[in-house]
């Protein structure tokens, strides 16, 4: 099995590892780095639970190999806020009942973090469109949409806590 050196910055910390070329980025994050917040729901790129940011753009960690992230900056759900704090979006998920089992939540948060960064004043329809790459079986999406709109409003109002994204 081909092994390859790879260097990835994850949540601001640099990691150098020699890994199997076929190791997915998701398994690398989960099992090599023990960042288990990134979840796997389908491993074929539909459910979006494994969504992470690679150089600031959302990507399916199940459809990328770890070695493809060589030289990249990866952000996972664990990197959305400093330890012990929550981002405005994370808090909005709690306030608006944006999660039930919480399994799809990390992917939702990553997708919406990118979306709200690029679209600070979205309509409800735009939020829903942005979420079509993430499946949730529990919530019926209402709380997630409400959380996104709530977070957008708070971020616009500049109510972000220090360090929140």
């Amino acid at each position, binding site marked *: 099995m081909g092994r390859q050196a790879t260097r990835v910055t994850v949540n601001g910390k640099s990691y150098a590892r020699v890994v199997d070329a076929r*190791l997915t980025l998701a*398994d690398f994050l989960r099992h090599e780095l023990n960042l288990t917040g990134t979840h796997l729901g*389908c491993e074929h790129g539909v459910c979006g639970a494994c969504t992470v940011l690679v150089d600031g753009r959302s990507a399916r960690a199940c459809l990328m190999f770890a070695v493809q992230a060589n030289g990249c900056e990866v952000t996972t759900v664990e990197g959305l806020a400093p330890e012990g704090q929550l981002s405005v979006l994370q808090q909005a998920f*709690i306030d608006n009942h944006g999660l039930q089992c919480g399994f799809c939540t990390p992917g939702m948060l990553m997708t919406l973090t990118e979306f709200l960064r690029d679209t600070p004043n979205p309509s409800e329809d735009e939020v829903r469109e942005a979420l079509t790459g993430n499946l949730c079986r529990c919530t*019926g999406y*209402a709380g997630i949409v409400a959380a996104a709109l709530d977070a957008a409003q708070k971020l616009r109002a500049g109510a972000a806590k220090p360090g929140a994204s």
Partner: protein
Amino acid sequence: MGARHFGARVTRLEDPALVAGHGRFVDDVKLPGLLHACFVRSPHAHAKLRGCDARTALAMAGVHAVLTADDLPEPMRATPLPLLLPNPALTVARTQTALARDEVCYVGQAIAVVIADTRYIAEDAAAAVIVNYDVLPAIADCRAAAEEGGPSAHSDLKSNIASTFTLTYGDVDAALESADYVFHEALWQHRGGGMAIETRAVLAHHDPVSDLLTVWSGTQTPHIGRRMLADLIGRDLESIRMIAPDVGGGFGPKAIFYPEEAVIPAAALKVGRPVKWVEDRREHFLCATQERDQYWDVGIAVDKEGKILGIRGRMVHDTGAYVPWGIVMPYIAATTVPGPYVVPSYQLETVVVLTNKVPTTPVRGAGRPQAVFCMERLLDRVAHELKIDRAEVRHRNLIQPEQMPYEVGLIFRDGKPLVYDSGDYPRGHHQALMVAEYDDFRERQKAALAQGRFVGIGVANYVEGTGLGPFEGVTVRVLPSGKVAVATGATSQGQGTRTTLTQIVAEQIGCRIEDVVMTIGDTAAISQGVGAFASRQAVNAGSSAHVAGVAVRKQLLALAARALGVIDADIDLEDGVATSRRGNKPSISFGDLARLAQGIPGVSLPVGQSAGIEHTAYYTPTQAAYCSGTHVAEVQVDAMTGGVKILRYTVAHDSGRVINPLIVDGQVQGGVAHGIGNALLEWMQYDDNAQPLTTSFADYMLPMATDVPTCAIAHVETVNPLNPLGVKGAGEGGTIPAPAAIVAAIEDALTPFGVHFAETPLTPERIVATLRSAGAYDRLFAG
């Protein structure tokens, strides 16, 4: 009194860890020396096994073992998995063995398991295991399977019929013969799978020092799972601990005890190292239980006013290759048809048929969506034929509140007469129509039609037996730290069980919510447990939490009275402190009371005082708790593409007293989403050889954020008189009537073309095909 917790819109205690990525799901558990499993599964729907050659696989680097049925311990090796819900009407009570021995009867049935250093290697090796098959004819369609002369789902069975039973009351034959009108419907409903976003997962670890076998499983029922595993593996219950940690959605299929939950612990014992298996999505499509097809042929007898006189019919239920949960689902379906309506006579013959597909067991709704679809389609037909408004037909037939408790005339699945404990169906119906602005709809429809838009409205009612027994337990224990430990056999797959039970306990004993330390889904925490299914936990565990809380409150008051030198009645319990209302209001903390309750070594406790501050309650409901509701769907149909957009969706829901409106609204909204999937999207398809065709989320459609509107939800609270909290279940009501309401709305939208729909899922291609047969396109293109 301190802050009211019961009934408050408390944000969930589960959430902070989950949004931070600090949840702990089975696949997140790491143990030293952990090995990984991959199953070798049948590619055939039906075949005889003619040996297995694992030499190549075993020679691969990193492979530790390849186990087949003969490598499993006794009695698991040859004993079928236990039948959880026996029933005298079940004539073929067949369940599968943990690994197939002689014959496989559905695609995906497990034959062997590979244990290796990594999941990657295990998958490589599983592909290298050679299994020899003699392929047998397979039966896919349950209607064909019910006929004589076709292929048998199991080679030793002459008939594929696992059960036939007839439920009846009243003189239905007379009703159908003498009625003013009798209308017949032939209906097909399909439910699809649970499709939790977290797939199933099992991790087993045997500690040779303590001889404890610990099993983490993404299950809804760890106590039941432990019991089944103990039987299969020949160990005492006390030497097995089963833990359901964070579980990423359940929806029914995770309530089943699966072969993997037996095989992975056996493998861990065999190789002497921890072993983990995580189902992949394709395996979930192949091997996790589903609901599937029911075919109904039913007739309804009504008088000239549209009042129901009787319903008679036959239903064929596809149970798949085995019956792990017996006939519970078709039985629930058969008893749910009358619903909130006065149905003077009723008869349904149900035929449960084996096919070569993965077994069916309850998925959110559990047979009820089909029954409600049947009833509501019949009522829509009556409304259409007699030219009565659809809501009015329902209104005329609803059971009135003064008729409560209402005895339907059937025996429900809890073994008790089907008696609705409480409810105000006309109020719920009326409220839903008000919120949905039903009375103005025809104006909206007319205006839309003038713009070339086809919009329609559908109404559906249901009654659901929730809160089923046998029991659930809660232990409440005040710790010397002042924290309150709560343990329960209830489990959580996202329902917020921890939050609601905490609210109930905090309400009773007067502690702060943040001081409750909850253990859920761990057999080590409480001796008896059942788990999550049948919307049962608020009723069962909630009542137990209440009873245990009341008992601990009494203990706290007695101890504090003694410590503070006052009587119980003069003490307030608030925020974890007992305070006297007398004198200078002396107080003592719960922590100090817990220390007092430990007594002094060697010294007798005062009379009447028990050890510690602790109580365990097991609430045992006398019968189901019947919740109810009304759904109104308003849709727009694109006649050219068959696309359906749900414009607004209204729910009036009676789940008794609401413990936490945030959570109940979430359950309703999420349930509706599942119902939308059932109505429009989700179809687990098989070919004629019972080969699954939809085994990815690219082929099997789940509702997306653009498919599910935010519902308008109205709560109609009628107190359940049978449990101390007055609650009823809330987990499935959102799903149950949704397909009926949505399909009715689609039909209503397409009234100009005179089409009729009698099936779910109603996919765009089915809508287009129906419109085409009705000549709709000739008219549309001509116009």
